[in-house]
């Protein structure tokens, strides 16, 4: 599929995040303070729409172009919860989860530059430290160079 298809999907997603409050510092804080229902409503509706649709798509088992549908579940390990805690702290500090960092950047919010820099350093550090973390946290083995890259 051409890159422009993904650019359009990303643009649509980014526009909705921008206009919904999901990429808004105050709406995120007010979600965590239980002062606003907006984000709970958005996430709940998104799951309520995606779950039955996904069940139907998996039952049909084919993509729009007739290829076998591929849905790989994420591996379960102790990092899910520990990493989730760290991510939650970061989401609260910045008022942005990963998608909205890029949306805020596009909107012109200059402080998002700091968040993006932090994310890249944090993700980079994780990748470099992976060999030391993977044993203790029982993280999945890296699959390297099977050739279909």
């Amino acid at each position, binding site marked *: *599929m051409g*890159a422009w298809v*993904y650019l359009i999907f*990303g643009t*649509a*997603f*980014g526009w*909705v*995040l*921008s*206009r*919904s*409050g999901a990429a*808004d*510092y*105050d709406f995120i804080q007010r979600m965590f303070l239980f002062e606003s229902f*907006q984000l*709970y*409503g958005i*996430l*709940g*509706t998104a799951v*309520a729409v*995606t779950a039955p649709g*996904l069940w139907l798509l998996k039952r049909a088992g084919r993509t729009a172009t007739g*290829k076998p*549908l591929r*849905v790989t*579940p*994420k591996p*379960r390990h102790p990092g*899910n919860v520990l990493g989730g*805690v*760290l*991510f*939650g702290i*970061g989401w*609260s*500090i*910045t*008022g942005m989860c990963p998608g909205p960092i*890029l*949306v805020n950047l596009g*909107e*012109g*919010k*200059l402080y998002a530059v*700091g968040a993006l*820099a*932090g*994310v890249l*350093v*944090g993700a*980079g*550090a994780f*990748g470099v430290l*992976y060999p030391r973390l993977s044993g203790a946290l029982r*993280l999945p083995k*890296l699959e390297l160079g099977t050739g*279909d890259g």
Partner: protein
Amino acid sequence: MLILHELTPLPWWLAGTAIGAITLLLLWVTNQRLGISTGFENLCALALRAPYFRRDEITRGRAWRLPFLGGLVLGGLLSAATSGGWRPFWDLGMFDASFGWGPAGKLAWMFVGGLFIGFGTRLAGGCTSGHGIFGISNLERASVESTLAFMAAGILTTNLVYRVWGAS
């Protein structure tokens, strides 16, 4: 009211339905599982050669994740441009009201938060999109546990920042 041009946000049911529809269309049309934070590894892979950034999942995903991330920036830009014009700004709503830090302080605060997000989402194997929306919709235990963890940590942190620190 949004910080961006003080817009009234879309109703939650409409925004949630749109996000669900985009998630399903992305899978049906392109056979890709929605997930944003893994795309940051593709950005890291442009500069870092550690084996973690050369694994198959990353090299395979680059062709769709990078344009998708670019689209998120473009979506934000178009949203601002079509609702009062695009301009760079520093406004940070409640944070300005409670702490009143200048640009350098905000950048530092955001950088620290970003470190937690970058390291945390990679350790967790996903974020709000891949775990919270797709994973929960697919009834994956790892995603349910991770989502409960990041929601709880967010609630705790924001309450500490605004009800303890910001209130003192």
